[in-house]
């Protein structure tokens, strides 16, 4: 198996932009039958940013994540990572290209331990051909050893209490810890970009504050670019460099937090939309 993602070599000219964005989404549309879940959305995420997508339920936020990670294929439009097209790639190829994610409803491998979950995240860093599995040559052993060290390092990122849970089955963990394991598992592949789908959903205020802390620390320590879907405005307003607002699949606003807070359309979408006329 090659570790190099297969790219179709499609590149875009640098245009007049000062720097190519890490991830460029150009006029992306996704239709399911007659329903347009994502409608002509364009986003540029720069390297090192914390970029949030907000919007009411059903606005298409998770669909955007599913399109980026290859679960869905866009009906129209382009997705470019470092100028290379990700359109139509399968999820494992997208991961190898450098984008990892977590899920809105946590999807850990519940019949595996915390440590094993993180090791699955390290899948792409290990040798897997049957010959090396059977004969365990030195390069295979050293890769396994490094993977285990890396897994431990990622768990210790979340503190000694997380390390102490490493042999616990994922299903036995508390909600906040399961969220952390999911982040550790996603970070295991050393992604350039981490997609977090509602990382504080269902958390109380102190847990939320801790989550905000580790999201910022992830960027500081690993230099990872972060894309965030979040409902809690106090989270997004506090940590985002840039925010895009989706409503009914369309991008209705984009800007720095202060701009978004003043935006009339955003306020209306969140607070005061009149019920649709029957």
């Amino acid at each position, binding site marked *: *198996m090659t570790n190099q993602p297969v790219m179709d070599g499609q590149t875009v000219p640098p245009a007049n932009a000062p720097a190519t964005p890490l991830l460029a989404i150009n006029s992306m549309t996704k239709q399911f039958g007659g329903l347009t879940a994502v409608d002509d959305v364009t986003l540029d995420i720069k390297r090192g940013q914390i970029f949030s997508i907000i919007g009411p339920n059903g606005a298409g936020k998770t669909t955007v994540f599913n399109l980026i*990670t290859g*679960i869905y294929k866009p009906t129209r439009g382009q997705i470019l990572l470092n100028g290379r097209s990700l359109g139509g790639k*399968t*999820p*494992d190829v*997208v*991961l*190898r290209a450098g984008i*990892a*994610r977590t*899920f809105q*409803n946590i*999807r*850990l*491998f*519940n*019949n*595996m331990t915390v440590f*094993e979950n993180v*090791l*699955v*995240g390290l*899948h*792409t860093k*290990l*040798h*897997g051909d*049957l010959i090396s*599995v059977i004969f365990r040559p030195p390069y295979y052993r050293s890769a*396994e050893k490094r993977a285990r060290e890396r897994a431990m390092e990622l768990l210790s990122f979340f503190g000694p209490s997380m390390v102490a849970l490493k042999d616990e089955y994922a299903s036995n963990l508390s909600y906040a810890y399961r969220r952390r394991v999911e982040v550790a*598992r996603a970070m*295991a*592949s050393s992604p350039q970009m981490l997609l977090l789908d509602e990382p504080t959903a269902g958390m109380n205020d102190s847990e939320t504050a801790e989550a905000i802390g580790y999201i910022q620390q992830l960027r500081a320590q690993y230099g990872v670019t972060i894309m965030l879907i979040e409902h809690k405005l106090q989270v997004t307003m506090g940590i985002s460099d840039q925010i895009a607002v989706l409503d009914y699949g369309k991008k209705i606003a984009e800007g720095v937090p202060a701009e978004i807070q003043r935006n009339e359309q955003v306020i209306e979408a969140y607070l005061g939309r009149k019920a649709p006329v029957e």
Partner: protein
Amino acid sequence: MHVLAASSAGVGLFFQQIENGVTIGAIYALVSLGYTLVYGIIELINFAHGDVFMWSTIVTLTVAQLLHFDHVLGGFALVGALLLLLIIGIATSALLNVGIERVAYRPLRRAPRLIPLISAIGVSFILENVAQLWKGANSIAYPVFFPTDAITLGNVTIPFLDIFIFVLAVVLMVGLNVFITRTRLGRAMRATAQDPEAAALMGVNINRTISVTFLIGGALAGAAGVIYSMYSNSVIFNSGFELGLIAFTAAVLGGIGNVQGAVLGGFLIGIIESLATQYVPNGIAWSQGIAFAILILILIFRPSGLLGQQVPDKV
């Protein structure tokens, strides 16, 4: 005095049937693992699996005949013959199983669940028909080359062949367990079984993982084919049908999708069958009927199998 003698002979018979049951049960268990692994990962009953097993028996029969393994071998000749037959049998079934998945199941992965099942039944018929065209409809004697000696413990006779079968089966099962729990591909298999989409998003190549699963299931069936031929001394084109059904049942009894369950189920059915042969009047004629009656009883009270878990509905 008379009573004592009879009861001691009775105890001997009991343990003799346990010995027989463990031996055939080891073979059932190897085949049963192939059903459970495949079901665990794509929720398909691979109805062609029994015939994948059968193909190992007819290919290795051909090799044994060509090389004139028709007298009892010893020493290096025996080891060499066993290794050669095992390698050929394992390769035959493993590659056949991977090929079947690629051609007959993969294109149907998103189809309604009944469709790949029908495809599996179709493949089963094709494999049997081709085998029948090649080898004819009658059973063929399998040459005896393994020493026929046995050791005796009290009243129980344990043939060397049974010891070989048991040891080989246990080595393969332990190897499988190490593979599944300790290696990257094994972890990928378990991850894919639980949540294929999440596994793919961790960089796991789902198609490749499914191929590896079929490869391993086929390999175990191939090894089972080699030792089953030596055990039964005969080979026939439709042997995979009945043995496949029994092994599938063993997988369900143990809890389909559960690896330890398949092994437990295989041994249990082997032992129940053997005991029924001994203790039920004319039991040899309907030992399988009895085994299945017990199976139905167990499943009524534990529908998810002995070691199967009560899985909540998938979201």
